[in-house]
């Protein structure tokens, strides 16, 4: 990336000239002001990071830039021409394209069709030509290093990570001038592919806006960053000069303690709470492990190694094809999340896909939080608004969620606050075993800390936690023990100080033997 610095002076109009200028943009949804005042400047051939806490207005800014919504005030210029897109297609007309965090692919169309939408290749009769669509889809895939993906496959058949890659590839294909990547690595376990694509796009002179919560990743690919806080752009900083602490401070308004706390290793009696033996199922080839009371057990794995199946099976969503699960010594025969919640000391699940499996849009955040344990707060089958709110507020406090959000429709909250609400709900369910699938996915630093603290407190009170994370530092920071899944089996198990990123990575890619030596 740095290699381009000398060339910069000579190619003033190719690299470094203003590709996208945003000034004073604001957007309100009714009385809710999502974005108060944002300034932003993107230069051709450069990557700018957009940083901010959940709810800072990042998503709204992205939606404005992509043409999904129109700003109430402010001006935007692309290559010195006024830019007022009224739809995603119009934005594309100005060669501005976005890879959305909440993917925008059509699940029941093929990969190739999705890549070419909205203009599918026509045959001589003016109808869509399947063969041409496939050929062109294949071309696009190979251009972006994805030739391993079958262009004829229905998108819904692909794992989440590949769907995200397709989304990104399609955006790059349409982004002649400006490329917006909203949390492009949220579902990707490694960054090699995406960085390669970004560098290629930069070389074409595309200006890139990169939105991510992972600061290490941002430092690797971006040179400067614009920080949003509470709907305003606070500052643009050069990433080389700013420390992590500086940036966090700008994001949250106060300093964040980022020192790693070593997981407490008090001498507990290892009383097993969950015993899994030889669990078989779709993508699971015999998994056995135990979770003790008061223990936080991490699961590390590359994508698609059976972690999803493991969690869904333990949560009661899918039936195991073999093996047993015991909770508190009783063989678990539950067949739904509801039964799981009430089985023995209870099992509660935080789902992977927040949007489709987690939140209930149209209901308030408070209702979303109390839903799993409504009967507990009800009197004779009826709920008073007061007890609902009080219970939700207590749950919100455990994850440091601002209580004024409780009366909002959960769909109007930012992704991070939705995640906090769901996390608060899982913690408050009363279950003694929590299954957390990527509990901090798409969540900012401040929120992460509060979620970690909540998980730790839960474990210290005797609860058991099984959590999967796509971010290894999280496992290192949080887990008492860690399982590494590979191909539906437990490849390695680490505990205590042995949990280190390099060891986990080695085991995750299947090098367990060499590492063990």
């Amino acid at each position, binding site marked *: 990336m740095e290699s381009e610095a000398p060339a910069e002076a000579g190619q003033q109009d190719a690299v470094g000239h203003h590709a996208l200028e945003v000034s004073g943009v604001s957007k309100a949804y009714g009385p809710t002001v999502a974005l108060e005042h944002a300034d932003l400047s993107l230069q051709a051939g450069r990557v700018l990071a957009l940083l901010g806490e959940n709810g800072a207005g990042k998503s709204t800014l992205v939606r404005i830039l992509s043409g999904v919504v129109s700003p109430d005030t402010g001006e935007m210029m692309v290559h010195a021409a006024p830019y007022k897109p009224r739809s995603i297609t119009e934005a594309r007309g100005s060669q501005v394209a976005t890879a959305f965090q909440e993917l925008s692919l059509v699940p029941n169309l093929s990969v190739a069709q999705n890549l070419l939408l909205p203009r599918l290749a026509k045959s001589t009769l003016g109808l869509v030509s399947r063969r041409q669509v496939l050929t062109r889809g294949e071309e696009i895939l190979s251009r972006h290093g994805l030739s391993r993906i079958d262009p004829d496959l229905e998108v819904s058949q692909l794992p989440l990570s590949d769907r995200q890659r397709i989304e990104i590839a399609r955006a790059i294909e349409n982004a002649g001038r400006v490329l917006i990547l909203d949390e492009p690595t949220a579902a990707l376990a490694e960054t090699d592919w995406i960085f390669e694509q970004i560098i290629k796009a930069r070389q074409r002179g595309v200006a890139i806006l990169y939105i991510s919560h992972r600061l290490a990743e941002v430092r690797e690919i971006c040179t400067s960053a614009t920080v949003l806080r509470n709907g305003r752009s*606070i500052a643009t900083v050069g990433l080389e000069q700013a420390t992590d602490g500086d940036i966090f401070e700008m994001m949250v308004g106060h300093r964040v303690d980022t020192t790693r706390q070593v997981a407490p290793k008090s001498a507990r009696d290892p009383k097993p709470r969950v015993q899994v033996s030889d669990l078989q199922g779709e993508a699971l080839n015999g998994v056995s492990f135990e979770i003790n009371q008061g223990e936080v057990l991490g699961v590390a794995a590359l994508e698609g190694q059976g972690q999803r199946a493991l969690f869904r099976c333990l949560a009661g969503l899918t039936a195991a094809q073999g093996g047993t699960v015991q909770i508190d010594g009783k063989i678990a025969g539950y067949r*739904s999340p509801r039964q799981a919640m009430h089985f023995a000391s209870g099992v509660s699940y935080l789902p992977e896909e927040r949007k489709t499996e987690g939140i*209930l849009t*149209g209901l308030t955040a408070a209702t979303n939080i109390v*839903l799993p344990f409504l009967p507990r707060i009800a009197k004779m089958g009826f709920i008073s608004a007061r007890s609902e709110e009080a219970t939700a507020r207590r749950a919100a406090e455990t994850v440091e969620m601002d209580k004024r959000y409780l009366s909002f429709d959960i769909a109007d909250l930012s992704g991070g606050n939705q995640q906090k609400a769901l996390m608060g709900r899982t913690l408050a369910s009363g279950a003694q075993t929590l299954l957390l699938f990527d509990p901090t996915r798409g969540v900012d630093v401040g929120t992460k800390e509060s979620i970690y603290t909540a998980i730790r407190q839960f474990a210290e009170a005797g609860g058991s936690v099984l959590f999967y994370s796509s971010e290894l530092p999280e496992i290192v920071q949080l887990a008492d023990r860690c399982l590494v899944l590979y191909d539906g089996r437990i490849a390695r198990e680490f505990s205590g100080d042995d949990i280190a990123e390099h060891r986990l990575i080695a085991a995750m890619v299947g090098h367990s033997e060499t590492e063990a030596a």
Partner: protein
Amino acid sequence: MTFSKDSTQDRSAFAQTGDARGVARVSRETINAIAVAVICIALLLGARFINPALGSWSQVETVLVLGSFLVVLSFGQGLVILTGGLDLSLPAVITLGGIMATNWIGMTDPTAWYLLPVVLLACAGVGLVSAIGIVWLRVPPFIMTLAMSIIVLSALLGYTRGSPRGGSPDAATALMKSSVLGLPSVIVFVIGFVIVGWLFQSRSVAGRYLYAIGTNLDAARIAGVPVVLMQMVPYVISAVCAGIVGIMLVGYSNGATLRMGDDYLLPSIAAVVIGGSSILGGRGTFLGTVGGALLLTTLGTIISAIGLQIGLRTIIEGLIVLTALLLLREELFQKLGSLWR
């Protein structure tokens, strides 16, 4: 670190204001319910200009009595719609309730009020069969309820040999014809019904579950909602409501016909939609539906008072449903969009 512009000033100014972004929101349902009530009253008062006899207290009473059928019926329909379904078997179940009340109770022992729950139980059975077909066998709701409707009506045709006989059971007549505290008893009954219905839909655990199911079935299941049971409940309640309406109609007109429920299907859906519920489920309140039912009834009374034909009335109702749907379009398209994605 370097700031691209003078940010210190920005930041200190910001520290004072904090997060100034707004909070207050009035729910769309509330606005809708108020709007419907206002239109309703305006219509009644406005009707005086057409005909001085309209808009009087006795006119209001008539509207409430006639509207009581629709209020009870659209409670059930509203619950079904809330979970994303649709109940097309209401006319058949109304007829079932009506004919059981006349041909069975009316013919054997009109004083046997204790047999009325049995009638409702039979109606609940029809709803249960629909529910099983929809939830377990995954038959689309409109096909399943339409099929049930044909089966029930055909069975009734066979049972009555085409001509229902018998009069109204005493209890039904008492409900529709007597008065309490100077008000027709049925109005008192419906007020009670509305309170119970509102409590159930908006304040009960079961009601919350129905909303959750209507918004996102997968998320509801993960959140521990008993989705199988709670998807079935609305169809049973809906059938019971239809049974009640059948009995009420019998009490009102002292007899049953094989087509007595026909006029109520579209209004039952219209009342729910006008009341601000989403036809795709997950949104709406029973009070809104009550407003919708009364508005439709008011319109119906005015139309017949003016002397328009019944056909015109149906056309107007159809147009109202379409207009209501168009007004809710933004939301409709959003939901369709999210399904598409």
